[in-house]
């Protein structure tokens, strides 16, 4: 039907309603868990292959109370934290050197490009050969994994500093060191932090892989061991721990980022 007027208002123009989306995300999680639970309750899947969420939660609590889980978490966490800190520290140092000095860039950049594509877990046997099967080899492989994203982002951040801002600083009387301190590093900071977030994910991946290949304790070991014995509920409890660890590290890093980069909060 032809009409003489067209009206745009809040009922005819869709979009921009962010509020409902949050509920929808939670809803989808709840629905999947409920379906999953129902499928197990009605015997549609065997609990050996997929235990019910309630059973996983019960097992999770039992393992938590018995101390078994905390022990594994603590071990894995210790490896992650040491490896992560070492890798991030080295990544920032090397990244700054390469980003700031053309000589260092000429020397180190080819090495980085050459070694970057290697899947880091492939280096584990070599590292074990060098450092033995103990803690240090696990810390080392995580450090190597965390190193690359941080290093590469640091280089990109330092080189990506806006030449206009550097000109502005120079025109106001900043010397070379002040330009680096007050402009280059500050503008690189958000990029470096993004690299650190990638490194956290990489650390979790590598700790589990390393523990599955060469460890007698830790979350990765727990999951593999439970799988071997077909203790599926225990296995799933281990995966739940990883999920929580991943979320936890994201939240912590977000907090740190918000504290260190307050100027980008407005957008």
């Amino acid at each position: 039907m032809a009409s003489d007027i067209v009206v745009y208002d809040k009922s005819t123009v869709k979009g921009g309603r962010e509020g409902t989306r949050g509920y929808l995300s939670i809803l989808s999680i709840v629905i999947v868990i409920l379906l999953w639970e129902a499928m197990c309750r009605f015997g549609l899947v065997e609990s050996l292959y997929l235990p019910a969420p309630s059973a996983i939660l019960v097992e999770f609590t039992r393992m938590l109370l018995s101390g078994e889980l905390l022990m594994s978490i603590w071990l894995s966490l210790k490896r992650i934290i040491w490896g992560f800190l070492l890798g991030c520290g080295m990544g920032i140092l090397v990244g700054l050197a390469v980003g700031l000095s053309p000589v260092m860039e000429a020397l180190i950049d080819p090495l980085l490009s050459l070694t970057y594509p290697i899947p880091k877990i492939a280096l584990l046997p070599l590292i074990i050969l060098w450092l033995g099967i103990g803690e240090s080899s696990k810390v080392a492989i995580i450090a190597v994994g965390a190193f690359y994203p941080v290093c590469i982002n640091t280089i990109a951040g330092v080189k990506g500093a806006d030449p206009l801002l550097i000109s502005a600083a120079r025109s106001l009387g900043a010397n070379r060191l002040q330009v680096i301190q007050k402009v280059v590093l500050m503008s690189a900071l958000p990029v470096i932090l993004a690299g650190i977030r990638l490194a956290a994910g990489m650390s979790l991946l590598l700790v589990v892989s390393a523990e599955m290949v060469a460890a007698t304790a830790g979350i990765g070991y727990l999951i593999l061991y439970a799988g071997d014995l077909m203790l599926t509920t225990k296995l799933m409890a281990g995966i739940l721990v990883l999920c929580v660890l991943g979320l936890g590290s994201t939240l912590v890093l977000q907090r740190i980022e918000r504290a260190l980069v307050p100027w980008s909060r407005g957008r």
Partner: protein
Amino acid sequence: MRVIVDGISKTFTRRPGANGRGNAPVVEALRDISFTVDDREFVAIIGPSGCGKSTLLGIIAGLVPPSSGRVIFEGGIDAVRPLTSVVFQEFALFPWRTVLKNVEFGLEVRGVPPGERRDIAMEYIRLMDLLGFEEKYPAELSGGMKQRVGIARALSVNPHVLLMDEPLSALDAQTRSIMQVEFLRIWEKTEKTVIYVTHNIQEAAFLADRIVVLSRRPGRLREIIDVDFGRPREEGLLSEDSFLKFCDEVWGLLRDEARVAMKEEI
């Protein structure tokens, strides 16, 4: 302070950001530019886009080395004050610094103690009508407010010569005309030597004592035009017949250059 631009030429051999790898085609940006800016004079530089105005300002600011020629600063040099400071078209504010910290930057790198530099910065924040915004980050400000910060920051170091590179051209028309008038008031108070790059003829005619007209690239000196309207200038000048006629004459000089420059860009 007088600024003598003496036979400045500039040829770029590398593209910006090419980082020294491989030589891009040579660009001759400026050819043999000479003019003098007198003490406390307001000189506007106009020319078609790409003719080397920003490059020339960068050379006067000591940020870009000229290929040949020299810039001479003469008379009344006070060693504790910088020769120049720059206001940029794109504002060039430090996004990680609040308004106050942005304005303090030049004083901070010069080693002015914190209490003192805060007082000086606040003085310019008041001058630029920014009170109440000291703790805001640039991302929270409108374009007009950002450029107020840019101007406050450049003035805070009390330079002998203020260099402005199309400071208002990123702003909308209303904000621009408000800022023109306001800036004129401030300049009359500070009486600094100003070199002001613009591609807006009205702006140049309204603000400046003289207009330096550059040709299309490579930028050469076309003409230096005296602007004889008395001071203080009021907003009403913008719509006076004599003013519009003057702008038309300047446009006549620039038109052909601008036309060719535009075709070359495509």
